[in-house]
């Protein structure tokens, strides 16, 4: 039995009730349905706002982060007044203000192999709005094991992808991406940036797909992947097929339970840009500040040229990471060298590249120029 709508709800949802594909019965279906949103960030913002406005009866939010002012360029569910507060609480207040008729359940905890099945089991649909590979594989596997649709979206700079992975009716995320890329190969948004409106475009498409699946209308993106590019303003679609060798949803699947996803992906399950090159390879900003006074050091800034306009360390040579392999001849392996970037991720990659090319006297500046700006030259901005 579907729940009835109150007089207030009939007025609130009148524009839905006027559409024959939704109507009174569809709106009652939405009231009776539940959606779990993994991540309350760039994608989670529009997704949760529109699903709440649409009248999904129960929305679950999973996130353990707090609102940071660098989030507000795109995470429009949060605000200046909620900086420093828990994201799930900031989001819950906004959603209940938008629609007090619905229930918001919050999970202020990382989504992990230990809690994911328990959290997800009572929801009708799962929306993947996370920001890292381990949680994406976890979200997929949970959806496959519980037999639920996983509305997938991901973003980077100007690119977005959306699909509905529903192993009962089509391929899953692992059918397309059986393995994650090697650590460091694909930059995160914290490292590479993202156009603020991009998660708005992609998240609203993601919310649209969730509503279609819950209402049972239209042609959801099952077996299709949408590829969006904001610069070209292009929408491309490709066909996805079930992979007969898929390790979670194929006929000979050998992954039958949740695994250690951080180990599988080789990266931590949060969007990170602070990286360490490991024992012996790092130099701290304090050490560097001392050493530049006495020693000759070759400083190599591996950031993109446009980042130099934000902050720079004097006398550093700029060779962007993407050009480093081709410009090795500009460096002398006899020099004592310190590599740096924004926070340490790209310089760690650069260090790996240089050491594999035979450079031995090379160090990574731990925490990058942002750490330098925090602790040594506080006149520099942090970004």
């Amino acid at each position, binding site marked *: 039995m579907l729940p009835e709508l109150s007089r207030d709800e009939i007025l609130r949802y009148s524009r839905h009730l006027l559409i024959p594909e939704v109507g009174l019965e569809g709106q009652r279906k939405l009231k009776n349905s539940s959606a779990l949103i993994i*991540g309350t*960030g*760039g*994608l*989670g913002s529009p997704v949760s706002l529109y699903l709440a406005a649409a009248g999904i009866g129960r929305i679950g939010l999973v996130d353990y982060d707090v609102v940071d002012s660098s989030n507000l360029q795109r995470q429009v569910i949060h605000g200046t007044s909620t900086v420093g507060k828990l994201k799930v609480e900031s989001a819950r207040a906004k959603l209940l203000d938008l629609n007090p008729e619905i229930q918001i359940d919050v999970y202020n905890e990382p989504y992990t192999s230990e809690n994911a099945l328990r959290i997800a089991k009572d929801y009708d649909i799962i929306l*993947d*709005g*996370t*920001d*890292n*590979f381990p949680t*994406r594989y976890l979200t997929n596997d949970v959806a496959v094991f519980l037999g639920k649709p996983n509305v997938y*979206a*991901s*973003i*980077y*700079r*100007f*690119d977005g*992808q959306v699909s509905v992975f529903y192993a009962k009716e089509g391929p899953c995320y692992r059918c*397309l*991406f*059986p*393995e*994650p*890329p090697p650590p460091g*190969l*694909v*930059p*995160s*948004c914290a490292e*590479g940036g*993202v156009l603020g409106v991009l*998660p708005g475009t992609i998240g609203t498409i993601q919310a649209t797909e969730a509503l279609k699946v819950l209402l049972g209308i239209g042609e959801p993106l099952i077996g299709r*992947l949408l*590829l969006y*590019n904001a*610069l*070209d303003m292009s929408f*491309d*679609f*490709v*066909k*996805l*097929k079930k*992979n007969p060798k898929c390790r979670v949803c194929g006929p000979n699947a050998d992954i039958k339970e949740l695994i250690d996803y951080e180990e599988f992906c080789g990266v931590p399950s949060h*969007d990170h840009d602070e990286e360490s090159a490991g024992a012996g390879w790092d130099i701290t900003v304090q050490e560097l500040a001392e050493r530049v006074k006495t020693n000759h050091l070759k400083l190599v800034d591996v950031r993109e040229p446009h980042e130099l306009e934000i902050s720079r360390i004097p006398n550093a040579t700029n060779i*962007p*990471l*993407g*050009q480093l*392999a*081709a410009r090795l001849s500009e460096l002398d392996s006899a020099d004592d060298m310190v590599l740096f970037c924004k926070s340490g991720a790209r310089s760690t990659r650069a260090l790996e590249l240089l050491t594999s090319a035979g450079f031995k006297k090379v160090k990574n500046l731990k925490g990058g120029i942002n750490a330098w700006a925090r602790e040594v030259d506080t006149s520099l901005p942090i970004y």
Partner: protein
Amino acid sequence: MPVLRIPTPLRAYTNGQSDVNVNGVNISDALTDLTTQYPALKPHLFNEGGDLRPFVNLFVGENNIKDLQGVNTPIKDGEKIMLIPSIAGG
């Protein structure tokens, strides 16, 4: 000639080019031509043994080459080849 669409994360290795014209009658030729034009792309597409990395998805038109003939999938003049990246941002 066929056109290969480069996704944003890999454009750092193609001097920012989004579409690269490639020569060849099949995907294998096209990738050889692509990595000859842009050698820095090679480690991102192929492993040390010279095989296409498992997370690299190539589509000819709407179809994944894994569902066609893999790197032997024929390509025609003017055909669009898409390299679909694994991205994780949210």
